[in-house]
């Protein structure tokens, strides 16, 4: 498994260059192993038999399940050839028993010249007296790595920018109260602008 994880991290993901920095990005954030086919948690095994790693891939436009599978298989088949007795499966979509990621979020790439974007920017300027710090990609590379429901809405033909308060997490999770207040004001003004 350790060799496989290293190989997965070293996989060259086929993609085209994009304006959001730091993508594509791959991370294994969760591993379940030594629990048999049913992931039985009632005991501790002395022999590892089967191990499942959840490989999360932040995608850019053009990447598909098929391209990702091909890239991972290319790496893992080479490992298999070098290690008799080792076998693997790539499962997609995620089985429901894992209670995670039933669907994929596609990448989001919406032009900024949408009325709703203009309405948010206008509301922000009205409340703060200045332009937003950014319109387009997120402020940080980390922010660009997560799929969100805006992409489903945009795929359905609904312009759907993200605008919401931030904070911090990983221990005593918090939101900034002044950002919550600012967002409420800007959202209200954007609704007045859009809906009359």
């Amino acid at each position, binding site marked *: 498994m350790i060799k496989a994880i290293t190989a997965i991290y070293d996989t060259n993901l086929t993609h085209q260059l994009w304006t959001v920095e730091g993508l*594509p*990005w791959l991370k294994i954030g969760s591993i379940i192993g030594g629990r048999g086919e049913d992931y039985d948690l*009632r*005991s*501790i*095994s*002395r022999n*590892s*038999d*089967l191990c499942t*790693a959840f490989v999360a*891939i932040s995608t*850019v436009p053009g*990447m598909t*399940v098929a391209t990702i599978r091909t890239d991972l298989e290319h790496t893992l088949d080479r490992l298999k050839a070098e290690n*008799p007795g080792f*076998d693997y*499966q*790539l499962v997609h979509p*995620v089985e429901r028993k894992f209670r*995670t*990621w*039933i*669907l994929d979020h*596609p990448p989001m790439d*919406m032009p900024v010249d949408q009325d*709703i974007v203009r309405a*948010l920017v206008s509301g922000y300027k009205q409340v703060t007296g200045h332009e937003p*710090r*950014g*319109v*387009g*990609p*997120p*402020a940080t590379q980390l922010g660009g*790595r*997560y*799929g*969100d*429901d805006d992409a*489903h809405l945009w795929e359905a*033909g*609904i312009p759907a920018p*993200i*605008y919401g*308060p*931030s*904070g911090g997490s990983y*221990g*005593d999770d*918090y*939101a900034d109260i*002044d950002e*919550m207040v600012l967002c409420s004001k800007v959202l*209200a003004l954007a609704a*007045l*602008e*859009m*809906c*009359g």
Partner: protein
Amino acid sequence: MDPEAAERVLQQIDQEELVDLGKSLVRIPSFIGEETPLARWVASYLSARGYEVELQEVERGWFQTVATVKGSGRDPSLMFNGHLDINPLALGWTRDPFDPWVEGNRLHGAGIRNMKSGVAAMIHAAEAIRKSGVSLAGDLVIACVLAELQGGLGTKHLLDNGYETDAAVVTEPYGAHHVVTKHGGMTIFPYISRVGIPAETRSMVLTPSPR
């Protein structure tokens, strides 16, 4: 936009009320698959204030909340969209995560960052409009969806059931000083490694561990 109407709406934004709403959302745990009690609470909160509310059963016994402020005319419709499901608790909590508290400019509590603060902000924005008495010509939809952390099952269900507004704002925690229109997608592949096990030890795989 009518400046007088805008001013009346902004006057209704109340920090204390907004924070209290955020706290109420935190107090009801809503881990993935367990959003229904919070969906019911949000439905009750909005129904009591005169919104047209639908509790949508996405799967048997699994609900999300959609409220609508009906517009008086034919202007474009807008959706505020936020998810009720929260991530598993990370390490490092120093207090009860479901008993929210304020410290300085920070509202603490389980799931407040991703994204009960955004849900509170969008509901409070709709409330500010309602309380101001300003009427909208287009519909305003408040969608408090489930399973965003499972890839967006709730929003997909919403779209499949006719909630197709002219525009939307998703109040994810990307920050109040940025409007985000592009970012990566997310695909998850469970990778299963099968290690060959000698036949004579195979029966030991699920035996209890030695003390």
